[in-house]
């Protein structure tokens, strides 16, 4: 009797210690975000006098300032155009390529597959100079179209890799019976494969949207005029120049920038984590 009580006690102590460790790590993860949230409702004077204090008169003024004078309103619209545009093109093209390279026999299929996927392992940072020259030659520097096309090109490899894992898993008996029914490869794709693939396409679309919404590099290199800026580059722009010391308004801008992806994460947490974890196995 006594011994089992000892074991129970030991387990409880161990569980308690573990809970404390998890709590401390959670606090470290949450604290910077919480601090930014509180700061966004303060005045700059309050921030410097008491960095840990709560706002005396919390207002949304910082948010309005960020949206209006901070250009965040325009940036959010630009980011929506660019992200949704890129995701739409990827969602049409990637499943087609993934289906063709996993389910249709054609010449050079192996080479085509490698070409489509190998881009996943290449750092876009390496080719910034020739990529900018390419967009210049196409007349697409400082345009949303140029940005969208670049995002599509560089996000396709992961999207295709992810979709291929799905198409490979479909039993071939399904395909065979459809072929007996006399369906061509296009109508088989449209009528049978595409409806089956929709949940996977949604996962890819969400992950691509978050990645493109958050992307800094391409926007930083290709965009010039603030009226075209997407959210991340506009955020950086807001911290320099006239509003460089307006930290409370910048905090509000940071929160505005993060709201869409955090909402997506709350709704689709499981999907997003599964998709992101795939990166480890995609290799």
């Amino acid at each position, binding site marked *: 009797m006594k011994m089992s009580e000892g074991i129970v006690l030991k387990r409880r102590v161990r*569980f308690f210690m*573990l809970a404390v460790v*998890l709590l401390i*790590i*959670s606090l470290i*993860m*949450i604290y*910077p*975000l919480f*601090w930014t949230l509180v*700061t966004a409702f303060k005045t700059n004077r309050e921030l410097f006098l008491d*960095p*840990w204090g709560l706002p005396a008169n919390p207002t949304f003024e910082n948010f309005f300032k960020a949206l209006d004078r901070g250009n965040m309103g325009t940036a959010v619209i630009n980011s929506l155009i660019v992200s949704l545009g890129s995701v739409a093109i990827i969602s049409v093209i990637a499943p*087609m*390529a993934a*289906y*063709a390279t996993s389910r*249709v026999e054609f010449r050079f299929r192996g080479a*085509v597959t490698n*070409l*489509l996927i190998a881009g996943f*392992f*290449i*750092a876009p*940072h*390496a*080719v*910034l*100079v*020739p990529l900018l*020259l*390419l967009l210049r030659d196409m007349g697409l520097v400082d345009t949303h179209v140029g940005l969208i096309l*670049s995002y599509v*090109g*560089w996000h*396709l*490899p992961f999207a295709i890799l992810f979709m291929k894992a799905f198409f490979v898993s479909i039993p071939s008996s399904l395909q065979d019976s459809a072929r007996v029914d006399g369906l061509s490869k296009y109508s088989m794709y449209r009528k049978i494969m595409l409806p089956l693939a929709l949940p996977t396409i949604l996962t890819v679309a969400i992950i691509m949207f978050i990645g493109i919404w*958050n992307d*800094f*590099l391409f926007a930083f290199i290709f965009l010039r005029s603030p009226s075209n800026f997407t*959210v*991340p580059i506009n955020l*950086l722009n807001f*911290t320099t120049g006239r509003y460089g010391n307006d*930290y409370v308004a*910048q*905090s509000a801008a*940071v929160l505005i*920038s*993060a709201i869409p*992806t*955090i909402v*997506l*994460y709350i709704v689709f947490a499981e999907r997003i*984590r599964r998709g992101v*974890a*795939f*990166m*480890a196995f995609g*290799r």
Partner: protein
Amino acid sequence: MSLPALVFVILFIYYPLVQMFYLSAFRWNFVNPNMVFVGLENFTRMFLNDQVYLRSLLNVVLLAGQSSAIQIPIGVALATIILRYRRIGGLFWAIIFLPYVISSVAVSLIWTWMYNPYFGSINVFLRAVGLGFLARPWLGDINTALIAIFGTVNWIYIGLTTTMTIATLKSIPPSIFESARIDGLSGFQEFRKITLPLLKELIVVLMIIDIAGAFKFFDLIWVMTQGGPSDSTHVTTTWLYRAAFRSSEPGYGAAIGVTIFIFSFVIVQLLIKITRSRLTR
């Protein structure tokens, strides 16, 4: 059916990639587009005369090394805990993954404020507990800037490492654990005989991701320090950006790009080949 995708990747990935090798042999600037052929001069300059480039390579190695050394053990430990205590584990998992969905620019700004010498929480905390003598401008101090950046890196990516580990552990069929229990294996034996061999493969994969990731690292450093103080926190990508677009030496930038491509792509592919053959043997 794969033609549209093929057109996109060839035009935006492979065409610039090939052109990068060609451009790396020239010297010119964006204002005066007269290209002068210089052969391998950009590369000899990089490895023989450019101290900042060499420093940026060292920083990439440090970044990959510290990411592997810190994130992998913590990630594996957290993954095991989350899977063991499902109820609080689920909430905890949701929390530690959160930074990964926020843009790197937003995260960099938040941490720049954490490290701010006047209102930054780290200095405020140090002063509050009587360690005020340790307070400093973390990102402006040449001794702490890189470490401060690494702290933020681990804060962002610990959730990702944990998530990848959880996905790997979940892929083990539960029947294996059942039969292990029937065979009378203890919890620790179970970890050593079943979980650990599986994790070995994962650890190699995570290390490869860390190496490739270090060569793709740009946003955080550009926003937090722009490579400073005294060019001590540059990585290869930020130095490429500075050379190509700030100093207007696109040829030199293309040459740095060639080294990034070779170091990340080629070395990573070799690593994958070596580990695959060793793991399947």
